[in-house]
């Protein structure tokens, strides 16, 4: 029996369905993805999981992208029964990014949110155990941010130009930007 291939739901269709149930939850809708209001993220995610039409029982993956002025948290949600997939984004503040945790909705988000917190510094409010996943606790900064280890004067980075070890630091730690007085 030929199996129908996965359908990618357009963001506008998702926004229509979501906007009808939760007015004000959608900030913008594009063909590829839908952008949610951070304040209503949890309610919108819970709706999309339990809605029979969107049926997003399966959290395919989540990650984050540093957009310089903001940090986007990206979710790919899917329904295995209806075989469709769609993309949801939620913007977070760049200096102090924080969004609601979806770990109470999907167990699969627990480790992935810890990963995003570790590497991008997004604090997930309501996560049962938000600690760093890969790096050690005292690691300065969040490496996947674009300003991590950037050089003074806006110089373009190149791996060889980075200070490998700062004086007074141990354990091969990198020095983040704005480490305080005395930083180059």
């Amino acid at each position, binding site marked *: 029996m*030929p*199996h129908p*291939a*996965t359908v990618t739901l357009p963001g506008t269709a998702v926004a229509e369905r979501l906007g009808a149930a939760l007015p004000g939850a959608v900030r913008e809708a594009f063909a*590829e993805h839908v952008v949610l209001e951070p304040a209503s993220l949890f309610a919108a995610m819970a709706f999309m999981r339990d809605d029979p039409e969107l049926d997003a*029982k*399966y*959290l*395919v*993956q989540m*990650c984050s*992208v*540093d957009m310089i002025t903001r940090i986007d948290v*990206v979710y*790919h949600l899917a329904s*295995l029964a209806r*075989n469709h*997939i769609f*993309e949801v984004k939620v913007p977070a503040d760049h200096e102090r990014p924080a969004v609601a945790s979806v770990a109470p909705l*999907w*167990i*699969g*988000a*627990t*480790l*992935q949110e810890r*990963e995003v917190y570790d*590497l991008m510094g997004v604090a997930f409010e309501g996560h049962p155990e938000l600690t*760093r*996943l*890969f*790096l*050690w606790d005292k690691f300065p900064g969040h*490496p*996947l941010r674009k300003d*991590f280890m950037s050089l003074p004067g806006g110089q373009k*980075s*190149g*791996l060889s130009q980075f200070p490998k070890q700062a004086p007074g630091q141990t354990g091969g730690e990198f020095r983040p930007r704005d480490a305080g007085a005395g930083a180059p």
Partner: protein
Amino acid sequence: MPIKSEPVEVNIGPQHPSTHGVFRMVARIDGERVTDVKMVVGYLHRSMEKLAEERTYTQNIPFTDRMDYLAAMTGNLGYCLSVEKLAGIDVPERAQYLRTMFSELQRVASHCMATGAFINDCGAWQTPVMYTFRDREKVLDLFEMTCGARITTNYMRIGGVAFDIPDEFLPALDWLVNDDLPARFEELENLIVGNEIILMRSRDVGVVTPEMAINASLSGPMLRSAGIAWDIRKADPYCVYDRMNFEIPVGYNGDSYDRMVIRIEEMKQSLRIIRQCMAELPDGPHKVDVPLALRPPAGEAYSRVESPKGELGFYVVSDGGPAPYRWHVRAPSLINLSVLPQMTIGQSIADAIVTLGSIDINVGEVDR
């Protein structure tokens, strides 16, 4: 008289044969029972997602070898598919068939390793793993014949595959998939499927329910062991899988035994796919010319393949430059670990080891 016991914290790993790499499981045990499990990962973290932002799209392919180093071909393939989707590159027919063929060979190699290591964890110390390694070696010989490397193959390219297969490849593959491996798998099945000791060690150990499997985003044999027939090769076909005739083996109980049997059955299905690829393999170019410093248009793409561990996804964001703006890997090994506490708490510590072995994690992919 009740035996008085007090909780003890046991570190399993980071250097321990049962953790399959540098993975640490901190188990809190009360007597023989596991009461709490914490996992500590990151010993193999190489920050590939950050490094990739300073390398061209082609230069990033070797990173994908070193993620799941037991299944480098599917890692290569998943990454190349995502860049091709982003840049809108069409891949020649012959390359599609070669990609399918090598992905399936890689699945056989990876599942051989997983099955051997799992029986190892069950207590059959080192003998079964030698049987499965013998079979895996033959597959790796074919890889070496084609691309010169056995583990870190770096074979797929954006727009095709790096090299065409040599003349002696198809006869060797024909012997392998038609004569040698079917007999070897039968031998393996006779030894372990239905073996009383394996049954006692792995039946009802590390059970995942279908609801839990979907909720925890499990994929691959973990999801299928819970009875959900979900395989990216069928659900969202890539390459030429939509033309292939094969079955998705599923389990019933979601336990460790089911996962082992599913892997053995999948290897046989892989042989079926390889035979069809060999019969239909068209002539023609094996790759299209793609600029070395490829600049895909600004945008983003998510594409996924069924790696031996599960759904391997690549999310690539381009800003129009020669290097990816952001590159995220949906690592099945990491996400399959999400349910480790739920699976192991309440079991004995020996069963926790079997459970971890049946997940078939690859720490290179967990940590990236």
